[in-house]
Every structure is written in C-alpha cells, then in structure tokens.
C-alpha cells in the first residue's frame, strides 16, 4: 500500500461492468515532504475521498477482489482509507 494525493476525478461512461457506479480518481504517491513520485494511477474510491485528500492506496489484485467480493474481475487499485497523518520518527 502507499500514501498518495488525489489529483483529479475521472469520468468514464463506457467501461467494464464491474466498475459501474464506482468513483475513479487519479492519484499519485506523495512523500511527507509533499514531493510527488512514481506514476499517476487511476484508483477506485472506496473511502469517499475527494480531490486534494491524502489517501491510503492498495495496489494488488487479490486484495482488491476481496474488497469487491469477486473472483475474476479486473480490479487492482483501490483507495482504502483517508490518511490523517504519518509520523516518520524512524528517519
């Protein structure tokens, strides 16, 4: 899982049936310093996140299918929580 910022919303009418009714958001990994890194990804929102929110993102197929309660659907990347804060005392 990783911490990311929600950048934009994605509207797509024509899409795979499993995504019907799901909110799709563009997210990108962000460091505590605020610096972005990695690729911009589209995640399925399951945490009522909004643009600008700092979120916890799961990027794994089997786990995503567990959340959806399905076996062989193409879901892989899901926003599973809103991050209040991250403490990095170990650094």
């Amino acid at each position, binding site marked *: 899982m990783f911490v990311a910022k929600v950048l934009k919303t994605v509207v797509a*009418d024509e899409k795979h049936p499993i995504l019907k009714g799901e909110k799709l958001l563009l997210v990108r990994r962000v460091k505590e310093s605020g610096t972005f890194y990695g*690729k911009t990804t589209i995640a399925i929102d399951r945490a009522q996140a909004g643009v600008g929110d700092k979120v916890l993102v799961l990027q794994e197929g089997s786990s995503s299918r567990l959340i959806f309660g399905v076996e062989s659907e193409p879901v892989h990347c899901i926003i599973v929580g809103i991050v209040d804060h991250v403490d990095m005392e170990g650094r």
Partner: protein
Amino acid sequence: MYLAKVIGTVVASQKSAALTGIKLLVVQPLDEEKRDMGEPLVAVDTAQAGPMDTVFYVTGREASMALEDAKKLSPVDAAIIGIVDQIGD
C-alpha cells in the same frame, strides 16, 4: 489502472492461437495533465476504443480477467477497460 491515449493499431496475422480475434492497440500512458508518462505499450481492446481516444487500462493478471471469458485466462498482460469522457473539472 493507468490513463492512456490510443496512438495506433497492431496487425499481426501470424500469432498465438489464444490471441486470435482480439483487437490490439498501441497506447501511450499519460499523467494527470495528459502528458506522456513512460513508453507506449500494446494492449488488448475490450472497450471498442479508437485512435485518439483517451482510455484507461489494467495490466498483469487483471488484463486477462477483463476479457469476456475471464476463467479462460488468455495470455495478455494489458487490456483497455474503459473510455475516458473527462478528467477533473
């Protein structure tokens, strides 16, 4: 899932039997500002996408699951599963 734009089509008459009848498109991944992000790749089309369309695709095992007979697990590693109407406001 990643955002991308369709930039081409691949025609391959001679190929693995498991890939017959599927449409192969060249897609260029994009970031949130629609700038190019990484290198283009070839993806199976399951959304009737065409050149210049902005789409999103999945990779890995999920690509195989996106095809109609998901249990069959076809040998693909990227599949377009939607056409984007709008990004942001």
